[in-house]
């Protein structure tokens, strides 16, 4: 299978001569030593390439499609575990029980983290902030969220979320990838894999992390990683610095034409390598270089907010001109969604309030409340809310009892996986509704529990994918985002 080059490009370095000749005897032995699988794969890929369609594409074409309600998703991930007591789950009964030990009949032996398990008493702490009803839906919203309260008729608040994880990293990993251990693809990667990119000049999955949040718990890039899916489906992080995407701009004195020429040759080299090895990661590499080149023009364009009118900055709040803040990221998210980016995920850390919760959560809400509400209304007036799904939520909830001493000036709350609140808005969800119910202590769910896998199944459904059908075979097993679980939450579907 010698390669004939009709174009002026020709490999001449002796090490590369092997590529020109294709497989020689030594190569063959080397490859067979690595497993006949590689050869089988070679043939498999070659035959699919011959038909002009990748294996992946053929598999995806066979995927049955549900007519999607949502074409795009923006997921505002509140990392750290926002307390449901000070945001969405109004528990007026707790004021009467302030300071009392949490009854065993409520706790039912639930495991606690090491941070509060040894406390002599688990004193019930009522919210330090008031609640009021808003909108036509008369939804109870905390006084800490005065802006979101004004758009509450667009939201579907789920008060009965629950997870299996009690610590941050496994809980976030579980939420984003469907498994507590690292290594599985993130939701956005699954969507990129299953649906592809609508806009060919931007990645299907883009991530931004707030600069202005307190970094109490770390985030890892693997949370938007592709796991075992081909690498081009990994989330691309946009930063607030001069280079929004690292290593994207040309070196000084190197113009776009040179870069293109270099990339064209590099692509040919990669293709040769691909013909010789048939490794799908080479395909991914080629796709990524192509995307990176397109992003050299598309990213500066989409990140440029200079032509946004003052009115827009006013809407998103005072921080929206501060690059990298949650508010500025919300504005950028809208711009990316306008460009039909499939999945935009914003992370905002700092919700892990083990102590001084009343003091700290105020600032946390201040940083996020207005921009969140603004994003919804901005999408709505542009006609995009009807096919964009907006999601707000963290990885778990917080305990009804105070971690550490309950004092008049403050209390803390420990991690609580058994119930917490999040909301969805926009495409395909019932606007102005509340779903699920917790007991008087917001400790257990009494109505309509929603498991993390159920949430994931519903998210995929809204994007037009049956979560049981979107599978990827890896290490001899077919993997799903929802593993072998997940039920569609029909009650929230419009």
């Amino acid at each position: 299978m010698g390669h004939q080059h009709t174009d002026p490009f020709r490999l001449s370095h002796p090490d590369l001569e092997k590529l020109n000749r294709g497989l020689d005897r030594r190569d063959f032995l080397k490859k067979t030593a690595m497993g006949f699988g590689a050869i089988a794969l070679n043939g498999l890929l070659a035959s699919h390439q011959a038909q002009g369609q990748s294996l992946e594409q053929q598999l995806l074409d066979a995927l049955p499609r549900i007519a999607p309600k949502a074409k795009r998703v923006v997921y505002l991930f509140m990392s750290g575990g926002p307390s449901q007591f000070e945001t969405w789950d109004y528990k007026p009964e707790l004021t009467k029980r302030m300071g009392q030990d949490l009854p065993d009949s409520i706790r039912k032996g639930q495991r606690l983290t090491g941070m509060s398990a040894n406390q002599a008493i688990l004193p019930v702490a009522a919210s330090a902030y008031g609640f009021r009803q808003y909108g036509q839906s008369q939804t109870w919203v905390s006084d800490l969220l005065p802006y979101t309260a004004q758009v509450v008729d667009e939201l579907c608040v789920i008060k009965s979320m629950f997870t299996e994880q009690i610590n941050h990293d496994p809980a976030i990993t579980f939420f984003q990838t469907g498994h507590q251990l690292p290594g599985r693809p993130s939701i956005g990667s699954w969507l990129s894999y299953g649906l592809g990119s609508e806009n060919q000049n931007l990645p299907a999955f883009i991530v931004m992390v707030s600069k202005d949040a307190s970094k109490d718990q770390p985030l890892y890039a693997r949370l938007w990683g592709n796991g075992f899916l081909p690498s081009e489906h990994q989330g691309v992080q946009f930063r607030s610095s001069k280079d929004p995407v690292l290593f994207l701009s040309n070196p000084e004195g190197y113009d776009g034409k040179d870069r293109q020429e270099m990339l064209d040759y590099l692509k040919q080299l990669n293709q040769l390598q691909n013909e010789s090895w048939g490794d799908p990661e080479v395909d991914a590499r080629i796709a990524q270089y192509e995307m990176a080149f397109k992003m050299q023009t598309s990213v500066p364009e989409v990140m440029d907010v200079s032509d946004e009118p003052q009115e827009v900055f006013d809407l998103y709040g005072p921080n929206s001109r501060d690059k990298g803040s949650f508010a500025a990221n919300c504005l950028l998210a809208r711009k990316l969604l306008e460009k039909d980016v499939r999945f935009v995920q914003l992370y905002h850390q700092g919700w892990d309030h083990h102590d001084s919760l009343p003091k700290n959560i105020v600032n946390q809400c201040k940083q996020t409340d207005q921009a969140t509400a603004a994003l919804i209304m901005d999408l709505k007036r542009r006609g995009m809310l009807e096919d964009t799904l907006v999601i707000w939520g963290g990885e778990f909830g917080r305990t009804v009892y105070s971690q550490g001493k309950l004092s008049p000036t403050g209390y803390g709350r420990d991690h609580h996986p058994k119930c917490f609140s999040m909301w969805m808005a926009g495409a395909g969800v019932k606007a102005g509704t509340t779903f699920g119910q917790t007991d008087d202590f917001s400790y257990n769910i009494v109505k309509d529990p929603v498991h993390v896998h159920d949430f994931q199944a519903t998210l995929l459904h809204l994007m037009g994918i049956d979560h049981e059908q979107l599978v990827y075979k890896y290490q001899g097993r077919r993997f799903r985002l929802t593993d072998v679980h997940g039920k569609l939450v029909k009650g929230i579907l419009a």
Partner: protein
Amino acid sequence: MIDLLGHLHPILVHFPIGILVIACVMIWVQAIRKTETQSSISALLLLGAIAAIMASISGFLLSNSGDYEKGDVLTHQWWGIGTTLCAIILYFFQAYQKIISLVLFVALAITGHFGGELTYGSNYLFASKKKAIPTKELSISAADTTQQKVEVDTSMEVLSSVKNSPFQQEVLPILKSHCFQCHSSKKQKGKLRLDTEDFIKKGGKEGLILHAGNPLKSHLYSYLILPEDDDLHMPPEGKKQLNSSQIAIIKRWIEIGAPFGETAESESLHVMSLQSQAMTIPSDAPDQMRSLDLSVEPANEEALQEAKNQGISISPYPSSNGGLSLNFVNIKRLDSKIWQATRALQKQVLQIKLTKRQDIQVEELLNFKNLQQLNLEQSNIHDVDLENLRQLPHLTQLNLYGTAISDQGIKALVAMKALKVLYIWQSKLSQEGLQALKKARPDVTIVEGKFQFSPPDTNRLKAIK
């Protein structure tokens, strides 16, 4: 162990055939060319005879497994034994070896043929190369069933007398073409027959295969959707596989209760399965999700590919069956070539998104008569163009935010009978014009976008205590 020996039969049979045929050929080459190769011939004949004996023994064990119809096996069995004897005789009696070798050759061919029929079906050798019955022909395939009925099975007659039966018309042809080879009167692999209602209801070695109303519990369906390399997958790897619409038909048939007789359903299983495929919504989903108010015939695959090749993003249109959304976000220049590529999709396209485009050709849009939704935000659409858009009878949603649409366009907007949702934020409509529009069309939801937050009461941000 005995099972294994039996299962080796399909492998072992090739040895006597190959070796003995070579021996026969060598006998005749020796006779004609007058060469001396008798020692080689004898060695081959001995080897061939032993192989034939092995094949016979393993074949006998296989026939006892119960997967095969006794009568058919007997023919093959006696021919096999005869062939083996013939090989042994040939080894011991060199005198008549030319004549006996001819007999042996014919016996080998006949034995092999009967064996082949057991494995591949009785009309395997001379059957035409007809492919799996395409789903389109399903409705007329009942006639096809009657035609071949005699040679397939007599028990069929009982079933085929029922008219307007989805089982008869749609399920049976699939079973016939894909399952009967191993699960009918000829062979009963896994002790299962699928050729009569009683047999289907009875199930096989592993029990029931049909749970009316529950396809996932019914092996008749669940084995079909296992990965092809799974041991339980049916039909077995390498055999002719069912296509997705055939699988969908079987699923649908079980879902509606697996009726063998006539049903009241007016739609065919095929159509019903297509509907449920387009939107796999569980039957207990909220009502508004199930009502598909929009239904168009599915787009042609080639037409879809052609449009995709031009860079047009295509996705299913929400709440529709077969409807499509076109997004031109990747198109640099919207010229006639691009529109040409969408010609074959004109019936299916229910939404077109031309956000921020300055090169809109309204007359092209008018070809999409079923258009429901048009995204023209921040485009160069003008009041006069709205007059043209009136010709789209089903236009329910129109996004005109950020356009130069002014009060001049109100008349056309009012006249759009189907219109339900209108986005006009940052257009040139005056306040009076908007009032007039609202008055003339109170049924239209107009999103003005004039949203402003009321400043929060900062006092309430303090803790209660």
